């Protein structure tokens, strides 16, 4: 209702002599339909409205600006009617079962670009997450154009995300606002968060807030997990795909006392059938097994203003990749067959306590403590890579106001400790790398909101780290509304991080490349910390196109590296790491149009342009395997709900990637040389969901249904222990089309 009112306000009065539309409203679901008196009848986006009389009759002047008539009444489902001709109508309004239910009078958006926040913030809610099967957090981004989901290598089936043309290490990925996908978890961490556990995702483009730390450079992603208080009592999701993958997700939530709730979240997936469709003797997707358990406790005492969470999560993930005939027991480290095993165990324990002063609701204290231990034991052919990473993180935030709630601030401090222990090398000759990293920081963030045109967030933090030094991280985000339904935003800020060169580039181990580490006396593998500045502007305009809601967003971001640990793939027999000497930047331009084309039909079109260049020793080059042009289209159609809440949902996503530069292979013999650029790639995904009732739904879908794939993704597959074996030249899908089906059952 509120939304409608706001929308109504945006449209000035227009009064022209009009015809009258007459009609009568009844209560549905009754054997003998009763007229409904007092129902609101009005034209969408206008101020023209009326109320039905005692017999349910109404008469409303026709509107030139709107063809959609809204009929609403407290306790009834609001309906929108498409009026094409002025003739009398009879309409039946369905009562809602639950009066507490939020009345949605405009359509609810599954992805929302914020008009009001000072940051360029995109929120994806659970409805968006259901648009594709979303087995894990990584795949959730497939329907969002701000994030690219790429293939990391030809072996592990790992998908990597990119934002503003930069890979995931430059994105701070947090779960429940604790930075989680980092360090040892950088490469596979997103696939360790099951999709059904995620309640919503917030994506901030640009450096974002100082509160979550100094590590974010391209942007921030925060995934909120399902809360035991709000999640269904029982939730079951079963999924099976033609590529051999099966999944089971179960959530069980119970109320223990009025204030204490607990939820048990279980996830298991397995793929034990090997596929080699491209006949290169290698598995197209690895064999995999994962068990993932989470127990979440939530304590809520609203009278005292206390909300508290305790999470315990255990993960055990095993992948086996390589040649189809590879048998780990017989062939490990031999040259019979090439194979790889990646075993990961992880334990997370985190607690959160927030207290809001009930007398002064603006005063709030929030404390978080998080501990994780991550252990990966792996080998790739004859290369070994083991990493053990322990992290302790704690943060306290105090929020209050300065004078009035127009001026808010957050202040706090955090402490982070990381211990890394790595074993790297050919199995006969490994090297150990061990390091401790700790940092303590204080931060202050001020927000000014004039409630109308301006919203400004200015933050600064000072950190002291044993490896990164003592430094300042300033960040500024501003929103200005020049006219109605518009939002103009700018952001500027810096970020700094230590590059985990092995963990972030594990795909190099599945190649014959030698690691060339150019030690320059720095504290992290002999290298210096990465430092970058990020600048961005964006503009968002909402408008009505043929009487239907639309919005257009345009943004431009630039990331400038003061120092970067350059990962140089330009020599085909090695991969080099060295400190940046010269320029390195990423320019990103994106334009996105969202349009509610017809009732229930939403379209999203996006185009992206990237210009990412780095000074390598061999010259200033475009970053390899990064397309300059990308096009994205998503169409979603949802039918009207029937009385039980049953409806159909159709969703389709098309992704087109322009040509991408291959790293140089000029040094290889002719049969192991690649062209300069990759071909273009277009993939199409489709999903159909049939919701039978709120408690039960079934979905089927197809990924990459046009069966687009790379013919020979692995270089030197015929000679995996030779000098030219390389699995890193991957620019598109390997497997081709795959179909899946699944069901979701909920008990509330």
């Amino acid at each position, binding site marked *: 209702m509120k939304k409608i*009112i706001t929308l109504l306000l945006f449209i000035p009065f227009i009064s022209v002599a009009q015809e009258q539309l007459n009609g009568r409203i009844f209560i549905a679901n009754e054997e003998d339909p009763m007229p409904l008196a007092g129902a609101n009848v009005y034209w969408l986006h206008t101020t023209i409205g009326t109320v039905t009389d005692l017999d349910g009759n109404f008469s409303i002047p026709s509107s030139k600006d709107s063809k959609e008539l809204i009929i609403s009444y407290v306790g009834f489902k609001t309906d929108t009617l498409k009026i094409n001709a002025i003739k009398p109508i009879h309409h039946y309004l369905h009562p809602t079962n639950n009066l507490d239910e939020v009345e949605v009078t405009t359509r609810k958006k599954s992805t929302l670009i914020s008009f009001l926040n000072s940051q360029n913030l995109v929120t994806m809610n659970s409805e968006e997450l259901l648009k594709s099967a979303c087995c894990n957090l990584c795949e959730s981004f497939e329907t969002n154009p701000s994030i690219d989901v790429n293939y990391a290598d030809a072996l592990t089936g790992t998908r990597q995300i990119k934002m503003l043309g930069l890979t995931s290490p430059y994105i701070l990925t947090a779960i429940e606002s604790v930075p989680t996908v980092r360090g040892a978890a950088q490469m596979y961490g997103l696939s360790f968060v099951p999709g059904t556990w995620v309640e919503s995702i917030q994506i901030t483009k640009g450096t974002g807030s100082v509160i979550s730390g100094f590590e974010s450079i391209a942007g921030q992603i925060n995934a909120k997990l399902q809360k035991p208080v709000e999640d269904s009592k029982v939730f079951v999701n079963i999924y099976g795909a033609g590529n051999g993958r099966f999944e089971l997700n179960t959530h069980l939530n119970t109320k223990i006392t009025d204030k204490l709730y607990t939820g048990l979240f279980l996830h298991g997936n397995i793929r034990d059938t090997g596929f080699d469709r491209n006949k290169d003797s290698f598995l197209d997707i690895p064999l995999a097994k994962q068990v993932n358990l989470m127990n979440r406790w939530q304590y809520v005492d609203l009278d005292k203003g206390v909300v508290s969470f305790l999470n315990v999560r255990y993960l055990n993930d095993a992948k086996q990749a390589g040649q189809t005939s590879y048998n780990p027991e017989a062939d490990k480290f031999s040259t019979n067959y090439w194979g790889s095993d990646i075993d990961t165990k992880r334990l997370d324990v985190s607690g959160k306590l927030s207290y809001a002063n009930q007398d002064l*609701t603006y005063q709030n204290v929030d404390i978080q403590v998080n501990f994780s231990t991550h252990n990966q034991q792996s080998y790739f052919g004859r290369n070994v890579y083991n990493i053990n990473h322990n992290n302790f993180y704690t943060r306290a935030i105090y929020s209050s106001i300065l004078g009035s*709630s127009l001026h808010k601030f957050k202040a706090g401090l955090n402490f982070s400790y990381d211990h890394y222990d790595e074993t790297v090398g050919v199995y006969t000759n490994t090297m150990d790398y061990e390091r401790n990293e700790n940092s303590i920081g204080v931060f202050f963030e001020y927000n000014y909101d004039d409630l109308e045109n301006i919203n400004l967030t200015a933050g600064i933090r000072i950190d002291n780290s044993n490896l990164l030094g003592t430094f300042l991280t300033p960040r500024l985000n501003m929103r200005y509304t020049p006219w109605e339904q518009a939002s103009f935003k700018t952001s500027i800020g810096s970020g700094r991080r230590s590059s985990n060169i092995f963990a972030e580039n594990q795909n190099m181990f599945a190649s014959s490349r030698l690691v060339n580490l150019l030690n320059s006396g720095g504290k992290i593998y002999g290298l210096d910390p990465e430092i970058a500045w990020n600048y961005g502007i964006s503009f968002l305009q909402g408008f009505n196109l043929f009487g239907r809601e639309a919005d257009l967003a345009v943004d431009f971001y630039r990331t400038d590296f003061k120092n970067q640990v350059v990962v140089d793939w330009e020599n085909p027999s090695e991969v080099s790491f060295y400190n940046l000497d010269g320029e390195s930047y990423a320019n990103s331009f994106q334009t996105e149009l969202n349009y509610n084309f017809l009732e229930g039909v939403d379209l999203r079109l996006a185009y992206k342009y990237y210009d990412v260049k780095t000074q390598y020793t061999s010259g200033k080059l475009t970053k390899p395997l990064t397309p300059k042009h990308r096009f994205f289209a998503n169409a979603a159609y949802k039918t009207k709900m029937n009385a039980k809440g049953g409806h159909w949902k159709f969703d389709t996503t098309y992704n087109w990637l322009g040509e991408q530069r291959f790293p140089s292979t000029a040094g290889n013999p002719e049969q192991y040389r690649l062209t300069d650029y990759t071909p273009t790639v277009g993939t199409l995904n489709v999903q159909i969901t049939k919701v039978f009732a709120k408690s039960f739904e079934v979905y089927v879908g197809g990924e990459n249904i046009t069966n687009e794939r790379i013919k020979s993704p692995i270089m030197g597959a015929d000679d995996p222990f030779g000098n030219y074996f390389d699995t890193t030249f991957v620019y598109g899908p390997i497997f081709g089309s795959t179909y899946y089906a699944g069901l979701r059952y909920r008990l509330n």
Partner: protein
Amino acid sequence: MKKLLILLVLLTGTTSFAQNKNAKASFEVKGVCEMCQTRIEKACLKTKGVKIASWDVKTHQLKLVYNEKKTDLKTIKKAILNVGHDLKDVMAPDEAYNSLHGCCKYRDEEVLKAH
């Protein structure tokens, strides 16, 4: 200096007694929509000493937290009237009311109905 201040406060005890830094108040303010809400809350918050102002679109109740040392209800109410919103027993000046956006004209039956 501090002692002096305390002394002063004690001396003027009769006037400063019971001055609450976080005084609360709640009363009805007339209006209809979210635009009214922004206008009402902004008028309050722009008054020095007002910490929180939240007006409910449905119930028309305004909840305030303010510092009694810096302002009083009379000043806050005046600020609300000056932007064109009636209180339960006091009407806003016509001039202020007339300058409201068309859809915020809460004295008009038709406008009320439309919301």
